Structures are given as C-alpha cells and as structure tokens.
C-alpha cells in the first residue's frame, strides 16, 4: 500500500494542520496592508512545504525558477488555499484518530468515576458491557486511522507537490515555442542582413566609388596640369575617410571590436564608463560564451543604458552580468521614475526580439515610481 513507515505518514498529515493554520493566517493577512511582506512569508512557507513534502515523498519538489515570479505567486496562493482547507481537514484525521482512541480507552477504563460518562459516539456508558463497546469504538478509531492515514498522507503529499512544483511544459507547448522563436530568429537575422547590406551599399560603397572617380581625375590631371590634381587628391582623401568612418559604424553594429579584443566583461565596462548617468558594474567572473550570445548580451546592455539615459530620469544605474548554470543573466537596474513598457518603446521591444531569437527570456519590471529592472536570461549554449 505504501513504502512509508506508519508514524511518518501520521506526523506528516498531522503537522499539515499547523501549516494549514499558518496558511489560513496568511490568506487573511493578504487582505491587509504590507502585501509585499505577506507575500514574502507566503514564499517562505511554500518553500518550507516544498522541503517537507519532498522529504516525505523522498522525491525533491522542483523549485520554480525565479524568472516568472508572477506565475509562481499565483501558484503559491492557490496552494495556500488548498492547505488552509484540505490540509487542515486531512490533518484532522490522524489527530482525530489518536484522540478518539485515547479518549475512548480512558472512558472505558474509568467510567465509574466519570459522571454521565459517554463514549465519543455519545453512547452512555453505565456498565462494563457499555465499557466494552467503548473499547470497540476506540479500536474502530484506531483501525480507521491505520487504514486511511498512510494512503491519505501519500495522496495529499502528491497533490501538494503538484501544486508547489512549477508547471510542466508539455513537449508540444515547448515545440510550439521553439518554432515561434526560430521564426523570429530567422526574421531578425533577415532584417539584420538587409540593414548591413543597405549601409554598405548606400554608404561605404558609394564613398569608395567616389574615391576611384577622384583618383581617375587625378590621373588625367597629372598628365595635363599637375597643379590641378591637388583638389581631387584632397576630395578623394576625404571621401575615403568618410567611407572608413561609416565602415567602423557598420562593424560596430555587427560585432563590436572591443568585444573581440577584450571579451564581454571589459566591453560592458567600457559601455558603463561611457554612460551619461553614473553606472556601476556588478561583475562576476564570466566564462567565454559563444560570440553571438556575448554580442546579444552586449547589445542588450547598450540598448538598456540608452533607454535609461533617454527616458528614466535616473541618477544611478547598475549593470550586473553573471553566469548561472548554463545561462547568462544580464540585469540593468536604474533608480528612475519607472513606467517603462516594452509594448511602447522600440528599444525594449528590440531587446525582447533579439533575446527571443536565442530562446532567452526578457523581463521588464518597471512600476510607476521606479526602479526599472531589465532582466534578460540567455541560454549560453554550453
């Protein structure tokens, strides 16, 4: 029936009453002010319960990732409601069974000394025969507990675990997501290629054509009147200089040279140093990630800083970069007035699309009054 030793199941269910009462208290507390602190307590209680259920089932309950805290909060609250009702009811069974046995045994043994003695089922006890019946009642309480508590504990633990664990994404859902991000990636890549083609074709290439034309003019002038060559030489020189300046811009927009030369940390440090708002870098040692991932992270920081400078009104920005198992986490926090919305700003939407193409997630948390946190998680592909 169960691989759990009896007492453990009893303890598990009975302690559920305590947890249920705390859950009830928190549910009531949610109606009061100081909601964030209540929600913190909810998170802690749920985390403790995850531990307890995991220990009981001998299967750890997966902890929801912190990426999607809104969903986690909703699930925690739903679990809270379950625990405050079902948890208490289920927990009353072992408690009731034990007290039922104890009470009836005491009544059966000491009925002559108890005025108006009656079993817990309300049968009056006026003779030793009645006392015998009371003992049978006690046995029935005990039997009920022994038969029902272990399977109930196991069933309830599983229900709790299901509520406490993050939702399992079905393969079909995952596939649909990957297909969508892949399409977005192709789309973004195409747009990027067109942008590069346009700037090389309309900018750099035209300037170089001008250089060649001016040099042609120089060639002709040298044979006729060498003094007339000078203006063309200067024009050619200027056109070539312009071509180089444009080329530098294009190169920087494809893959910033500082990234190739110095790696992500240093490249971002140089972005932070050039920011118009004082910007501190919260650095952690970063392993080298694929070039595309590093470039994406770099452009996210660049875009987020530009946005903060333009719109936030902040006077302090923090950029944090760290590697967590298999993902690169980028966080840009400013102490401005908040209210940033990725549905409106093209910059934030750009970040969203760029990161989705890498199967990463973007979260923009910007309540009115600030602070604004742009948080991006990119699978590092390692």
């Amino acid at each position, binding site marked *: 029936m169960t691989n759990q030793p009896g007492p453990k199941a009893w303890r598990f269910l009975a302690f559920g009453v305590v947890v249920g009462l705390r859950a009830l208290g928190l549910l009531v507390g949610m109606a009061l002010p100081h909601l964030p602190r209540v929600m913190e307590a909810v998170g802690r209680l749920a985390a403790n319960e995850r531990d307890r259920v995991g220990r009981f089932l001998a299967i750890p309950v997966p902890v929801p990732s912190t990426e999607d805290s809104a969903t986690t909060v909703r699930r925690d609250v739903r679990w809270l409601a379950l625990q405050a009702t079902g948890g208490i009811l289920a927990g009353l069974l072992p408690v009731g069974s034990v007290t039922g046995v104890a009470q009836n045994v005491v009544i059966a043994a000491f009925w002559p000394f108890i005025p108006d003695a009656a079993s817990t089922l309300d049968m009056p006890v006026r003779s030793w025969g009645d006392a015998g019946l009371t003992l049978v009642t006690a046995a029935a309480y005990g039997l009920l507990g022994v038969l029902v508590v272990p399977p109930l504990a196991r069933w309830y633990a599983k229900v709790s675990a299901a509520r406490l664990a993050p939702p399992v994404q079905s393969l079909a859902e995952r596939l649909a997501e990957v297909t969508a991000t892949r399409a977005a990636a192709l789309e973004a890549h195409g747009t990027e290629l067109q942008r590069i083609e346009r700037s090389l074709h309309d900018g750099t290439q035209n300037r170089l054509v001008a250089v060649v034309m001016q040099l042609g003019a120089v060639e002709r002038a040298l044979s006729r009147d060498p003094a007339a060559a000078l203006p063309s030489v200067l024009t050619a020189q200027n056109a070539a200089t312009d071509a180089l300046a444009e080329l*530098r811009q294009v*190169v920087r927009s494809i893959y910033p040279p500082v990234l190739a030369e110095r790696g992500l940390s240093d490249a971002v440090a140089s972005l932070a140093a050039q920011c118009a708002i004082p910007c501190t870098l919260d650095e952690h040692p970063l392993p080298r990630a694929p070039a595309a991932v590093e470039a994406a992270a770099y452009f996210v920081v660049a875009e987020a800083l530009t946005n903060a400078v333009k719109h936030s009104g902040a006077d302090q920005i923090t950029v944090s970069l760290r590697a967590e198992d298999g993902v690169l986490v980028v966080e840009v926090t400013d102490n401005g007035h908040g209210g940033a919305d990725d549905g409106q700003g093209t910059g934030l939407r750009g970040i969203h699309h760029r990161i989705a193409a890498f199967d990463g997630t973007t979260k923009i948390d910007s309540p009115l009054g600030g602070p604004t946190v742009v948080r991006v998680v990119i699978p590092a592909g390692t």
Partner: protein
Amino acid sequence: MRIVIAEDDTLLREGLTHLLRAEGLDVTSAVDTPDDLLSAIATDRPDVALVDVRMPPTFRDEGLRAAVEARAKWPGLAVLVLSAHVEESYATQLLADGSGGVGYLLKERVGKVADFLDALNRVAAGGTAMDPEVVAQLLVRRRADDPLRQLTPREREVLGLMAEGHSNSTIGTLLVISDGAVHKHIGNIFTKLGLPTTDAGHRRVLAVLAYLRK
C-alpha cells in the same frame, strides 16, 4: 628620429615605412608581432614606437598590451598606438602610468601626413596625441548639470584640442585666433571647470583628460 613599427598587415606596414622614410625619418625596424616589437625596441632603442592594437597570435589587443609592457620596461619610451577603431578605455590604459609620450590615433589619420607627423613629433617629444574621436567619446557622455555645459561652443572646441594634446600656438592656428585669445579661452575653461591652472604640456593634457573621464 628613430622609429620602430609594429603592424601585422604587410601592405600597411610597408606603406607606413615608405611614407616615413620619404619624410626623412629613420625607421630602424618594421615588425609584425608583439614579441618582435619588444626585441626590436631592446636592440634599436628608438625615440618612438608605432604600434597596431590588433596583432597575432590571437588578434585581440596584443599590440596594446605590448605597448603598455614596453613603456613599463623602458620608462620614457614614446609610443604611438594606431588602430582601426578607438576605445576610450584603451586610451585610459595607455595614459594610466601618468608619464608623457603617448599617442592613440585611428590608422586613417596617417593619410593627413602633415597632421600625422605633427602628432608623431609631439609624442616623441614627450607630449600627447589623442584621436579626436576619443575626445568626442569623452565629450558625449555628460550629464545635464555638468559644468561642461557652461562652456561656450568656442571654449568646447579649445577644450577638445587641448585634450587631443595640441599646444596653445597650434590651437590658435587651427581655430584662426590669436595666442592671446587662446590663452583667455583656456583661462575661462579652467575656471568654469574648477581645475587648477597647469602649465602647458603633458600635465595639462592629463588634467583635462582626467577631468573628462571622471
């Protein structure tokens, strides 16, 4: 003037050597790796080393590292770093030791030969030559309450040229104003920015760049 060149692109290395020799300068060695640069400096003891940032073996910032290393090893060695792009942070690194004789320019500045030779001479003489684009990077990131906002457009121009490492007389020539006018602008700039007036030369450039980096 004795010059050592370190540039891994053959065409550019030979072009630069040719151009400098045609101007009557003494290019003692032209090498293509950071290691060869260090040994060339050791044997030739040049007045100035011209160094490309990106060099073998990994084509990252080997040249810059070699330049910093060379300056630590031979104090007073003038180094002019050339690159296809400029980063303000690289300039900071080059200037970190606080001594003079430092230049950091875009490669294409070589094309304006007279300006380039002027920069080369300045660096060899212990002065500074910062690319206008480095200075521009320093000037864009300014806050609304920055004292730089109080400068007149002309004073900003003068500040930029000072940061590039130009002398008062060159600034006067470039802006077509008298030496007295340059002097007055500089006085106003230092007052508005709250900087102690420093004598001309490398110390002044360092003070201005340090202020802009702040």
